[in-house]
């Protein structure tokens, strides 16, 4: 009986040749904490992969019974020795073991088949769905594209979160930091952004890469389930490293994510990469550096911790038309302690990125979710990428909220305030209510435009702030049911034309008439 597998094996055996090229070898002279010191390998390069000859004296059966070769990564070139981090079970490495150079810099295998899969930091599938068909290896460390290869950010990435898309717009190719204490909804914003991409037309839909760095396996599993449930896994790759894995793998994970992103970017596609989170990445790098006996600096981080993150995030880019026009948008996440954004790693990453989204525990506890502090959140390049329709409606919202924040302190003296101040506070409260959104429920941008336009033009005047959310839902379903052409026009044209504005005004008047019960409450 002949099967394709047997045929392939036969063919391979026919062409089987023994190796006749000389390889450089070294010997392990010490090993501990996942770091091996190797003598020899005089011509080795930084970031080169080496293979530990596990089965030096073992039989063929024993050699192939160990699932895969044990690799190491050269990270220190010293006078007589090289220091290598073991990418796997370091307890298999023994003193005197032979080590072979591969001549290859560390790379991840990539191909179209990697989309929709969960892989580890070395690009190997870990979701039990079988092998991934790959067509090339992308180096994990690589110099970012130069100035002349790039074009300015000019297309938006819609997160589906009203507060972000209206006031802190993100462009394709931008690096926007998501920063906040634990449990403030940082990952939720990133996941919502991934889910929201399903509303983008297929040809413009970015490929999403979620890099989990040292996360609990349960958290990664639940994120995968959420994405699958929302139908977002089909355009997403998860690069997962858990807290139980060795620090070198945690260190490599975001670089692997960037390498996978670059593969698609070079094909002219847009990519969104979420690094969740770079605080844990910095801690893993610190651990590895200390074990490699590199000198510690501030907070015991090595001196090149800034360069580590800057060279990673510099790889996000919007390529020029000549290079296909692809992009990588990076959404790094940083976890702060007690809201301290002036700590070492947060200040580093703030200065590297093109803006930041600040999330606050106080706002979260007050029920304002996403707990976004719009006052100090900023996007430095995204506004030029905002759609015309959103730009038109979003200008007012920031001003209203800024005024509301100034007057917020006077809210407790409500009875002594003049009418104008009361009106401004009331309007601000309604905007705050409008910007609240449920978890994993992103809103497509055309609905956001309608919603914010309605708020700017008095749909919620004379209504109770507690009703805003309900009114918004009903208004959007009213438009979606009876005036769908409005949404379609904004979605395709991405503009608020006079015709659309007229239709919206008529719709608002009709809605007010048919939903009069919402407006009775405030009359008192």
């Amino acid at each position: 009986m002949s099967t394709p597998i047997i045929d392939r094996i036969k063919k391979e055996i026919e062409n089987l040749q023994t190796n006749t090229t000389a390889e450089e070898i070294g010997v392990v002279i010490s090993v501990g904490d996942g770091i091996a010191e190797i003598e020899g390998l005089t011509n080795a390069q930084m970031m080169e992969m080496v293979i530990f000859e596990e089965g030096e004296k073992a039989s063929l059966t024993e050699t192939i019974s160990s699932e895969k070769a044990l690799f190491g990564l050269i990270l220190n070139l010293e006078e007589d020795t090289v220091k290598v981090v073991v990418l796997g079970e370091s307890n298999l490495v023994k003193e005197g073991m032979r080590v072979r150079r591969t001549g290859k810099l560390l790379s991840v295998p990539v191909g179209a088949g990697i989309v929709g899969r969960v892989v580890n930091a070395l690009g190997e599938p870990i979701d039990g769905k079988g092998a991934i068909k790959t067509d090339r290896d992308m180096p994990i460390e690589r110099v970012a594209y130069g100035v002349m290869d790039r074009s300015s950010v000019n297309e938006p990435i819609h997160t589906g979160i009203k507060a972000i898309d209206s006031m802190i717009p993100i462009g394709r190719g931008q690096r926007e930091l998501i920063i906040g204490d634990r449990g403030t909804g940082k990952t939720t914003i990133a996941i919502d952004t991934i889910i929201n991409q399903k509303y983008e037309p297929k040809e413009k839909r970015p490929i999403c890469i979620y890099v989990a760095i040292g996360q609990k396996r349960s958290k990664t599993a639940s994120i995968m389930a959420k994405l699958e449930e929302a139908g977002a896994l089909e355009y997403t790759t998860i690069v997962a490293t858990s807290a139980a894995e060795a620090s070198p793998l945690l260190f490599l994970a975001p670089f692997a994510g960037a390498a996978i992103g670059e593969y698609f970017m070079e094909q002219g596609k847009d990519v969104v990469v979420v690094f969740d989170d770079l605080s844990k990445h910095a801690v893993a790098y610190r651990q590895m550096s200390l074990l490699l006996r590199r000198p510690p600096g501030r907070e015991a981080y090595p001196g090149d911790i800034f360069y580590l993150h800057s060279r990673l995030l510099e790889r996000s880019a919007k390529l020029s038309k000549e290079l296909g026009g692809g992009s990588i948008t990076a959404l790094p996440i940083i976890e702060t302690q007690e809201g301290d954004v002036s700590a070492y790693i947060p200040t580093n990453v703030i200065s590297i990125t093109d803006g930041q989204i600040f999330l606050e525990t106080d706002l979260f506890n007050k029920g304002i979710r996403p707990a976004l502090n719009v006052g100090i959140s900023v996007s430095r390049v995204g506004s030029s990428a905002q759609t015309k329709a959103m730009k038109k409606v979003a200008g007012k919202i920031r001003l209203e909220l800024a005024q509301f924040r100034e007057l917020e302190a006077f809210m407790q003296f409500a009875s002594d305030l003049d009418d104008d101040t009361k009106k401004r506070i009331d309007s601000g409260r309604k905007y705050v209510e409008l910007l609240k959104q449920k978890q994993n429920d992103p809103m497509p941008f055309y609905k956001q435009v309608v919603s914010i336009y309605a708020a700017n033009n008095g749909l919620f005047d004379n209504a109770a702030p507690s009703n805003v959310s309900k009114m918004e839902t009903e208004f959007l379903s009213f438009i979606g049911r009876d005036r769908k052409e409005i949404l379609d026009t904004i979605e395709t044209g991405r503009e608020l034309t006079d015709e659309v504005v007229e239709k919206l005004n008529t719709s608002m008047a009709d809605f007010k008439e048919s939903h009069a019960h919402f407006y009775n409450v405030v009359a008192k």
Partner: protein
Amino acid sequence: MKKAYITAIVDSLLTAKDVDAVLKNATALLEKKGHTRLWPAVLRGVAREFEKRCVDAVPLVAVASEEFSQSEALKQALVTLGTNATPKTVIDSSLIGGFLVQYQDRMIDASYKRALTDLYRKITK
């Protein structure tokens, strides 16, 4: 510094008639310079360097069976590695076929075991 001590001691040991005297002088020098703490590491280094100079000077050949020890490919491999010294040959049946030759920090693994392992990993990748 450590490397300089190791090289000096090894060179002295290779030419000296009295090994004890070399080691005694080395200890005294380290003591005088205040480097006594380096002594254990220096001794380990000396042992390694000795092994390297003595063992690495002779190419090591492992063959699956006698028939491979006279093969043309093996002679060619020794030339590739830049040695015409008579190799120390051992028989290692776990290689299945072919040979493995090691000289200083370079190696040519032309064994069937390696070829089959690579084939297995390529097919099962």
